[in-house]
């Protein structure tokens, strides 16, 4: 039986294109699936909104529902001033959702189960937040690290704590997504392996194999929910963190 970890292996599809230091950089299956996910997002949106009816058809209604959901989310979590950043958060949401859902198909690499991919997404987000904070508030942005009304004695500690909690955000954001996807897919594979192992005994035990199979059906359903939920959580937290940059407390 193959190891459940194998599904996360990345294969190179081409010879190394160039080298960074000593490590070769090639076009990998990960990159290919990300391109597919991005194309699906863009293509799906373009196709659904090809003719924009006042009374939306089925495809247009789905896209509009997603759009409305993220608009509400960003408005609630990041405030009125966040509208210019809505397309960015919506794009993040769509891309992560597409990657997560595509990963639910057999033989498709779950791109978001790799920390490197998520860290890149979260890194871009934090670059945007940091730059916006500096541009909008100038040096006043650094007041973020000092909540108002803190006694003088506690100031160094508070600044340290706030600084660490700010810097750790991209890691916790990407870690959450990666751990969710990784753990979910391992779980599905382990239960599938249990069924396969029991059936392979070719004895009365094979009948018991139905139990992990039934459980696996439930887990797959739950994983679809998790795939959507994690994209949603990523979007919410992006919006919550963005609020810090837009409205620094005084």
């Amino acid at each position, binding site marked *: 039986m193959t*190891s459940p970890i194998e599904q996360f292996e990345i294969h190179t599809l081409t010879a190394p294109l160039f080298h960074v230091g000593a490590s070769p950089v090639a076009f990998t299956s990960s990159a290919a699936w990300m391109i597919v996910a991005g194309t699906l997002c863009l293509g799906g949106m373009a196709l659904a909104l090809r003719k924009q009816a006042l009374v939306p058809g089925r495809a247009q209604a789905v896209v509009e529902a997603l759009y409305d959901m993220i608009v509400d989310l960003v408005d609630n979590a990041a405030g009125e001033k966040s509208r210019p950043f809505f397309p960015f958060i919506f794009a993040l949401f769509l891309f992560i959702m597409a990657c997560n859902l595509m990963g639910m198909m057999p033989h498709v690499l779950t791109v978001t189960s790799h920390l490197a991919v998520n860290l890149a997404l979260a890194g871009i987000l934090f670059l945007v937040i940091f730059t916006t904070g500096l541009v909008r508030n100038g040096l006043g942005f650094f007041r973020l690290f000092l909540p108002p009304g803190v006694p003088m004695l506690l100031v160094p500690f508070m600044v340290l704590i706030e600084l660490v909690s700010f810097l750790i955000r991209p890691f916790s954001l990407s*870690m*959450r997504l990666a*751990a*969710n996807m990784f753990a979910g897919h391992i779980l599905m594979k382990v239960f599938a392996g249990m069924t396969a192992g029991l059936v392979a005994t070719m004895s009365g035990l094979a009948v018991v194999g139905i139990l992990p199979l039934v459980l696996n059906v439930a887990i797959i359903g739950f994983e679809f929910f998790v795939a959507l*939920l*994690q994209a949603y959580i990523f979007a*919410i937290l992006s919006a919550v963190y963005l609020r810090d940059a837009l409205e620094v407390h005084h």
Partner: protein
Amino acid sequence: MDDGSTIRFLGAGIAMVGALGAGIGLGAVFYAWLGAIARNPSADAKLKQVGLIGFAATELVLLMSFTVAALLIFAV
């Protein structure tokens, strides 16, 4: 079994003790969430966002320990 697999499996078991905390935490999240909705049903929509963040943040603890356990068993 002298290839260190005994200690690996033992480690995986110990790593899953973290699920205890996550279980208690998830219970606390849904306890507070349900209580809040029961007290003020009109706040349902607003509480959804915060509730989901709390759920995801707590579940992360569980998934971390599961990931470590899975890596110990399958990857090391």
